[in-house]
């Protein structure tokens, strides 16, 4: 049992390093750009200095947030790797279907897009996205539940 786990662990490391690398361009941008993030509070700024101050603060915040996000990503990847080791074959299908349902979390993005847009076409896209994601989420959890119920009766 030990060797494969250690292998997995190398795997995880490789993946993490690779992804960190992938994320590089994005942090480079974060450092270079000095514009306030779109969701920062809207305030009336009167002087150049104040603008600069805000910009600096925003840049710092953007950077901090990005590192925190990256950290969270790395930790979650670790947890994912740790949780799914030694699953019995019986559970492969429900697990696949259950994690497919979890990946339906993109419904959050869909809702935000559908609500946040002003242009007609992109709001409509948001509607389609919400619909598709809702099918994925509701259907996914239900079908997983149905599969698992079958096993439930015998233990």
């Amino acid at each position, binding site marked *: 049992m030990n060797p494969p786990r250690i292998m997995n662990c190398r795997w995880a490391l490789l993946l993490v390093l690779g992804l960190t690398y992938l994320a590089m*361009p994005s942090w480079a941008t*974060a450092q270079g*750009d000095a*514009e306030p993030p*779109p969701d920062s509070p809207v305030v009336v700024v009167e002087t150049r200095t104040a603008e600069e101050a805000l910009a600096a603060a925003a840049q710092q915040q953007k950077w901090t947030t990005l590192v925190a*996000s990256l950290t969270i*990503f790395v930790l*979650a*990847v670790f947890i*994912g*790797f740790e*949780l*799914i080791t030694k699953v019995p*074959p*019986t*559970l492969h*299908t429900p*697990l*696949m*279907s*259950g*994690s*497919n*349902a*979890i*990946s339906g979390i*993109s*419904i*959050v*993005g869909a809702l935000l*897009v559908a*609500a946040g*847009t002003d*242009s007609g076409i*992109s*709001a*409509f*896209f*948001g509607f389609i*996205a*919400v*619909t*598709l*994601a*809702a*099918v*994925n*989420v*509701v*259907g996914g*959890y*239900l*079908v*997983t*539940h*149905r599969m698992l*119920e*079958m*096993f439930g009766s*015998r233990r």
Partner: protein
Amino acid sequence: MNALISLGYVVSAVMFIVGLKMLAHPRSAVRGNLISSGGMLLAVILTLIQVQVAPGLWIGIYILGGLVIGGVAGGVMATKVQMTQMPQLVALFNGLGGGASVFVAAAELIRSTNPAVADPTADVLIAGSLSALIGTVTFWGSLVGFGKLQELDLFNKPLPIPQPQIVNAILAALLVVLTIVMVVTGHLWPMFLIIPIATVLGVTLVMPIGGADMPVVIALLNSYSGLAAAAAGFVINNNVLIIAGSLVGASGIILTQIMCKAMNRSLTNVLFGTMQPGGGGPAGSDEEIYATVRSTSADDVAMILDTAQRVVVVPGYGLAVAQAQHAVRDMANLLAEKGIEVEYAIHPVAGRMPGHMNVLLAEADVPYDKLKEMDEINPTMGQVDVAIVIGANDVVNPLANTDPNSPIAGMPIINVDKARTVIVIKRSLSPGFAKIPNPLFAADNTLMYFADGKKAVLDIVTAIKELG
């Protein structure tokens, strides 16, 4: 308010983690799925609270309409589908999820490239195009997978392309170039090329893969759609997206590996070992191979069983098609009453999804301790008097061990040929999923019983009862 919502997202992420953890253990799986769905509900509610700040009428209709339409559609599909079709359904859901991220990305890109709003920043563009790309590939790839699992003829023909690998490499390179162009110029137009090209890539990637490997492909595509969700989380700074996405991404990759291991194949072999339809079989036509096939009847089978002490039932996909699980359980009970020991040998990839046979037999209330895993039963196969193969084919095909060119080469099989007598119940000599002939049917100790699985078993039961 904002504070509470952020904390709520953390709680929802924790529920996903706990749910996934419990989902990976048989006893807690049902509760795990419930907890995970609770996390999703919480996330959706929090998002609704968050966006409710200023919703116009239309937007409200869009959101609620989408949720209701999608939820009802998904619910109906999930409750109406038959057991045997669940794998297809999962593939379909996965595809729709991919489709959703395409539309999210597209909407976000349109919005952010709208000069009235703001200049799109490079990371929005990268993450947006990435998730559009992954989403499109997932969508079409999953649909092809759906078609293959549904055994639609269209999807089981080889592609009219000589070297799909090379084509795929070219397409992938094109996509990378287009993404770079898009990020550098900040224009939207490459999107209109990225989506069709990703569509083609999704199809050509999955088309050459055998349908038997679809569960692995779906798990992999699912893992990628998780990563796409995580990428989206980076853009909109939403931690629950990042956590749930990377959870799915990581666990999907591990799950893929575990599934490959159960089939004794490497991931590269699954993804790039092209399907060889019917080819590569042993020398000789079907007729030659099947020259010595002997067939039998219900009465003969009943007589053979009457003298047996240890019987092993090997179920396969045909059991699911014939819905013979209840009949089989009755037969086993009957034999047990006569003092004959009956067990079931479960191959990990028998049927069309992992655990398919366990689910079927559990439905018929077969006691759990009668189900033996392949590794457990193979060493004792020599002491078995009668092995009854019901609707299984590839998982008992000795070519997996003997013919290194066969598409199932290296897959561990249940060694029924070691049993004293083998009875194979199927409707004809036609091949199974892998489309290759099976020399087992012509073996000396094999008797073929050509009939529908359910009817055959019922007839055997009647015959046993007549014997007394």
